[in-house]
């Protein structure tokens, strides 16, 4: 069953087209790497999938629900139900500690999550000791794990990571890639990673090469 389906999607900023008649399908359990140089349209694609942008033409469906059309509230609801995103700048809420960041995410997504669930997740990530730390007290690696924990606490069907490794050295980049793949396995989450980082290619069996909206899918 396909979880994410893009059909003939086109998008342009003013006069410069970014995506043209773009097709893409992700099945439940897929782990997909979207590789493309900076400016190739990866973030635009993520914004479209999340419903922040509406395509000029074409359709986007998530778990059979159309996120490319309808009111903002309706698109918000589809996203809330199915998607979590981790950004390169992790955007942990600086005023809240790690635990509160997680419970806020759960509340916003309207998921029943107990403090024990949160603790277990942080434990799994190896940052249980940082539950009451503010984001600025965390190392880059810990912050990345915290952001991932926050994305996973809502039990998303689709986990999207935008440039998760571009600021990291080779070893850390590899660690993060492994972590993402492992987590998608253990949490049963479909994974879409967007990056210009060629180092990740070897970790993924499913890679989409994006060159200015031109796709070359290797399975």
């Amino acid at each position, binding site marked *: 069953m396909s979880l994410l389906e893009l059909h003939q999607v086109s998008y342009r900023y003013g006069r410069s087209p970014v995506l043209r008649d773009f097709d893409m399908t992700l099945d439940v359990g897929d782990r997909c790497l979207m590789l493309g140089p900076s400016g190739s349209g990866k973030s635009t694609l993520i914004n479209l999938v999340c419903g922040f942008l509406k395509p000029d033409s074409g359709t986007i469906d998530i778990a059979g629900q159309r996120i490319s059309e309808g009111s903002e509230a309706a698109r918000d609801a589809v996203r809330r139900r199915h998607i*979590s995103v981790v950004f390169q*700048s992790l*955007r942990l*809420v600086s005023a*809240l500690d790690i635990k509160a960041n997680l419970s806020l995410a759960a509340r*916003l997504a309207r998921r029943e999550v107990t403090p024990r669930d949160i603790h277990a997740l942080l434990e799994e990530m190896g940052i249980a000791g940082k539950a009451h730390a503010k984001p600025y007290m965390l190392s880059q690696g810990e912050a990345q794990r915290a952001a991932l924990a926050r994305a996973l606490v809502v039990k998303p069907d689709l986990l999207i990571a935008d440039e998760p490794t571009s600021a990291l050295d080779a070893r850390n980049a590899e660690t993060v890639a492994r972590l993402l793949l492992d987590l998608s396995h253990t949490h049963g989450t479909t994974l879409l990673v967007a990056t210009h980082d060629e180092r990740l290619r070897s970790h993924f069996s499913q890679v989409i090469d994006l060159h200015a909206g031109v796709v070359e899918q290797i399975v």
Partner: protein
Amino acid sequence: MIGLVKAYLLERKLTTALNVLLLAISVAMLTLLLQFARQSEERFLEGAEGIDLVIGAKGSPLQLVLSSVYHLDQPTGNIPLSALERLRHNPLVASAIPLALGDQFAGFRIVGTKSELFDLYSAKLQSGKTFEAPLEAVIGSAVAEETGAGLGQRFIGSHGLAENAEGQGHEHTPFIVVGILEPTGKPIDRLILTSVESVWDVHGIQHDHGTAEDDHDGHEDAAEAHHADADHGSHGAYGVHGPREPMVPEITAILLNYRSPAAAVRLPSTINRNTALQAASPAQESSRLILLFEPAIEALGGFAVLLAATGALAIFVALWSAMRSREGDLALLRVMGASRAAIFGTVLLEGVMTALVAAALGILAAHGLLWLASETLHSVGEAGIGPGHLLPEEIAILAGAAALGALAAVIPAWTVMRNNLAPILGRN
């Protein structure tokens, strides 16, 4: 969401504290004004509660009321004793109580009167008995407290009504305290009460040895004519005597109660038109006085509102700059499922919460200050001003502050709510 708002506010402790302080000061000021105005108004109206009309020498009606009901101003002059008799016999009058002013002890007025005066101020004896024999005196609770005088204490009155009046003392005629009144919160607390005859005795005025209500026909009409144009000015009735002036028994004022409401219509105008006396209504005069203070209170209130506006502006500036640094955070909240309305609400709540905390603190501080002032400053306590209780207007102030906070937050909240997410999320 409240948790998030609290966290945001605590993240910028100093800014939040300063904003709260600014608004709290203005709210405290407003509350103080309100309480002060309301309480002094209440005390004032209470002071005149039992008295329908004051009769005295012609002059300013406000001065007459202030001097004979509140014992604040100088009397307008003296009136003949016969006036008391005639009013007593007037069918419109239920009761008429004389006042003879002129001397003081330690700044407290010695008032020659009758013990019915206690009832006018609903004052009860705490200890001792009422004055009967010449030179016996009953003192108000504030007099007892401040001078430390107890039953049996002797004291010498001196001329003039001001504390530092340079009148000489009446060494040969010392008063003796025979009774002390319970505290009432009314002007009587600060009075020394004795019989009218005792006041005359102290001044060496010949009078029938009876009471003031005895018949005095005979010489009084002449006295009235004399005093009608006697210029006592603003001096105490017994404070200044021309050396050749005959010393006849006189009183300073009469406190009246009507027999029926109809009297209020007829009696004052009849007295003012047809006699050399003046009739003034305490209720009317005190509301006139309150009106006099209104502009000042309004001006101060206006200033406090201006200060509150400054506070609101500070909240606006703080939120506006916070929104710039928080854009990313809030965009992420949207990604995680928050609606635009929720984002708007979060920012609005931050403004409202700041303002509400400030207003609550301000109101609390105002009541605290009133309490402190009434405990430490004599004049405030004497004026009957205390910590007071929560007035409906203070709830309105609280609501107003909340509205102000919302107003300060509405533009930042609107701006952030309308933010386009994609470009913000695209930033690294």
